[in-house]
């Protein structure tokens, strides 16, 4: 059986690239992790899988989008913080980043925009226009992520 006729029509689409990357990550995670069913392990693994999904989605999008960069930045900072215990440096970076954000909340009629800013990664430093742009792209990528993950989960459990 050849798989060529069953390859996706657009091998470069976000969906396929995300699927490939996510599956590779899952494979690697499965190799490293022992099989265990204790709940703490499951919780830890859940966090790793979620991070893997977010990171692979953000890396597929790359540096083109503010939210993907912000997401990768957050993940990296978390890894750094976890790794090196140098919280001062991370705090300094965070403070500097927030200080450079300005005050984009003054736009009239967009009180709920602050909630949206919290949801979209990297949304705190953007004005409304780019926030809406980023939200649109973020929604699109989230839907593909959900679709792929759901398919994988269905695959696993079928």
């Amino acid at each position: 059986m050849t798989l060529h006729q069953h390859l996706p029509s657009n091998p470069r689409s976000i969906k396929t690239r995300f699927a490939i990357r996510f599956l590779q990550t899952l494979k690697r995670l499965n190799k490293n992790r022992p099989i265990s069913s204790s709940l703490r392990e499951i919780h830890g693994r859940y966090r790793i899988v979620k991070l893997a999904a977010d990171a692979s989605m953000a890396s597929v999008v790359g540096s083109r989008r503010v939210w993907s960069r912000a997401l990768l930045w957050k993940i990296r900072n978390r890894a750094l913080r976890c790794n090196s215990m140098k919280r001062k440096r991370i705090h300094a970076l965070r403070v500097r980043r927030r200080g450079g954000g300005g005050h984009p909340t003054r736009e009239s009629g967009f009180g709920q925009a602050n909630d949206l800013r919290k949801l979209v990664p990297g949304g705190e430093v953007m004005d409304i226009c780019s926030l809406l742009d980023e939200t649109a792209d973020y929604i699109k990528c989230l839907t593909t992520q959900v679709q792929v993950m759901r398919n994988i989960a269905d695959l696993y459990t079928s």
Partner: protein
Amino acid sequence: MAGRDNLEPEKGNVDPLNYHSPNLSADWRFSDANLMNTSVELIPRCNSMADFKGNLVESPSCSFVSMVDSFCTTIWDQSTHSQNLGICEINVPNSASNSNTLGIGTSGMGPLRTGGERTLGMGWTPPNAMLKGGVFLPTASGMLPPSLSQFPADSGFIERAARFSCFSAGDFGDIMNPFSSPQSMNPYSRGMASMQGPQEVFLGNGLKTIYNQHQKKEISMTENSKDVEGKAIKGSPLKDDKKSVSFGGDGVSGNESDEAEFSGGGQEEPSMLEGRGGKPSPKAVGSKKRKRSGQDIEIDQVKRAPQQPTETPKDSPEIQQQGNQSPISVTNKPNGKQGKQRSPASASLKEEYIHVRARKGQATNSHSLAERVRREKISERMKFLQDLVPGCSKVTGKAVMLDEIINYVQSLQQQVEFLSMKLATVNPRLDFNIEGLLAKDVLQSHAGPSTLGFPPDMTMPFPLLHSSQPGLIQAGFSGLGNSSDTLRRTINSQGTAMTGGYKEPTSQVSNVWEDELHNVVQMGFNSHVISAPLNSPDLSGITCKLYHIDF
């Protein structure tokens, strides 16, 4: 930990060398090669940390550090491939001259990596500060700021170089002007000038076209003018050939397809805008130009002076003429009270295209113009979002629309968390082959339930979700009963969102899941087959299934 401290003082020595070397990308190449070693050395460190603390949460995080590192390398790898490959390719032959820096880089892998990360950090905060200037700005500037220190700090030189490269690229000059908000032009022009400087020095023509083509695609996504779109479309088949010739890189074509996907939506915007009337956009164009000139006059005068002699030998002078003509066509349109004031300024606009000093009298007008332009941009984007978010076609008004958008994003994020939890419980059984999974995955994705299965009344469960979410995450799964309660709550409230068969991950939680499955089925949503728990599936069975379904 002590090892880290030893590396810290080395960092100070290495970083100036890194900054002065133009081949920062070559350092990245080395960091790519070294990253595997760093991840290997990190893992034993993590294990020792886990031994010290006995904290279970830390060790999974350390294992994902290696994963994170690979992601981040791939990102920056991709970004170097897609955006800065010109720099990489030209500077790699120069690496012989800077072999000492690379030698130091390889000897101290830790400082190299952290130095690189620092440049990353630096590269990221300026984009955040310069964000208003455009989305495409930070993509290249992420790599470039460290290498700028070797250039003379003469701003005039930089801006002239910027103008040279700008107008050699063609569209960039007139695209830049109409479509950025006024207050953003300052950092934008400076940033772009500083960016274009090193690019001009380093890169040849072909690479500039790639950079501009990348930005053009971004522009066609975010901006909304027929002119821009026409140029982008005209430029893209041309640039695609160039791109494939010069890279053959996976990242770039990937970027293109993604942006083509998104620009499909972006291209709807001009049609929407045109439907509303062609007037607002040229008015916006004219107002943007005037606003920009009000603030950046000195810089633009400097830029404009060398422009005109250098325009003609550039690649696409006709686009420049178009750019010059468009302000004329804009300003000649009658426009209420601004019509009269525009026509005397149109002559000056034709030449300099930016000077607005004569018109600064109407402060309130310019403010209202800017506000109107922003409002239109915002409403365009809200319309686009309305198409994205299901069930929002009937909703009118920004506030309700924003609420819907927020709810939708929240629900998507929670779906991701839910699915990742499912995958975490399900995962460790299988050792799968990616190609088979991918084929099956794609086939399934065509036939699978789409997110349109999302019920329209999703506002109701979300307050519940929002409150139960922290409970779920922070519960820590202390006990089985506790976890089942939280799971039940989550599943009850999320049952409306979850479609698809709920298979049972482990035998321990099987009762909980089955109850919730009944709830889901009774709610009348897509009822898939509720299968028995699979305790130990074998690989052959699953691959047979794959093949069966493939056939």
